[in-house]
């Protein structure tokens, strides 16, 4: 066998075996990684929206199909009735990357319980201030039958200064969730009760 062929064959074989090892590691460990990601990434947001430790609410999850894909929904029950939902969505039109937000809805009082940024890649110091409570707390107690908007668009949310795009994306994401819940409420409740 010529030297060149040998080099090619050996390198390809090594690369092949390595890819196989990586694939199987990834495949076998994926459930654990997802669990940890849920706990550390979504956990803190859920804790604030539901006021309960993340361990208790992370299991309360249903996935409802939507024309844009699958929407993860977390819920909390009060006796037999579903009292609160937390719906995850991607805020449309954010500044950098996907702005993943979670919107909390109190079905009993028909009010929002809050908006949380789950993961984002907004500009540090500007859009990244979406994590701050001063901005997020404006969502608490808003009625769910009206769309949310920032003040320059005629709404009640004070935008983060210097980051109107991010603020607008958060408001738009909330409206996506509100529309979604309004349309699919029966389906969501049915799925939760069927668990």
């Amino acid at each position, binding site marked *: 066998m010529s*030297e060149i062929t*040998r*080099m090619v064959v*050996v*390198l390809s074989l*090594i*690369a092949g075996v*390595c*890819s196989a*090892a*990586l694939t199987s*590691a*990834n495949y076998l*460990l994926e459930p*654990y*990684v997802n669990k*940890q*990601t849920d*706990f*550390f990434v979504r956990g803190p947001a859920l804790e604030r929206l539901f006021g309960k430790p993340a361990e208790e609410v992370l299991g309360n999850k249903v996935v409802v199909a939507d024309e844009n894909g699958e929407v993860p929904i977390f819920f909390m029950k009060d006796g037999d009735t579903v009292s609160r939902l937390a719906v995850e969505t991607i805020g449309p039109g954010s500044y950098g990357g996907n702005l993943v937000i979670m919107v909390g809805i109190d079905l009993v009082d028909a009010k929002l319980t809050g908006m949380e940024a789950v993961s984002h890649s907004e500009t540090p110091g500007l859009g990244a201030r979406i994590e701050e409570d001063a901005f997020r707390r404006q969502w608490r107690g808003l009625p769910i039958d009206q769309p949310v908007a920032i003040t320059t668009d005629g709404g009640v949310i004070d935008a983060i200064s210097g980051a109107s795009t991010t603020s607008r994306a958060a408001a738009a994401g909330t409206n996506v969730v509100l529309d979604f819940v309004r349309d699919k409420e029966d389906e969501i409740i049915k799925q939760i009760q069927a668990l």
Partner: protein
Amino acid sequence: MANTYIDTLTAGLWKRIPPFRLVLGLCPALAVTMSAENGLGMGLATAFVVTLSNGAISALRNVIPSKVRIAAYIVIIATLVSIVEILMKAFFFQLSQQLGIYIPLIVVNCIVLGRAEGFAAKNPPLLSMIDGFSIGIGYALSLTLVGSLREIFGAGTWFGIAVLPASFEPMTFLVSAPGAFVTLGILLAVQNLFSRWRGEKFIQG
């Protein structure tokens, strides 16, 4: 014969301890040692990679054509590092968030490639794995030492537990980047002074 194994096993703990004797792998030693926990985590991840990569490379040392050996080493090392990264995400999520980019960067850590080229390519698999293990544990100990010093004097805690009285004013300078250079420099100087006092010859590699 047994002596070779014991010599190799202990070499990483003093004679070749990285990064003090084997002045390699300084980037993580400076960048992630803000706390003892980070240092230990980084050190153990490197130990895992260098042990297995030494074993794998040594087992394949007669198969790999010498012209493409570096490429082959890197593929093997990169695979092991990715597996470590997935393992950390699955079981030590917070640590993996703190170490961030430095875990994937183990691939280009000179210690790993240095031991592959300098030891595993010339020695049988078992001995190479012992060498990797000893160097890796030495590295983990050094990083924990650097991390401990910086954490104790820079934040007043050790592995997150408060060890110094509240009246102690932490030298926050030590937990920022320049503190890493100062700590490592002092440790290197102490180590060299001690070696000179014992009349040891400086061993490279």
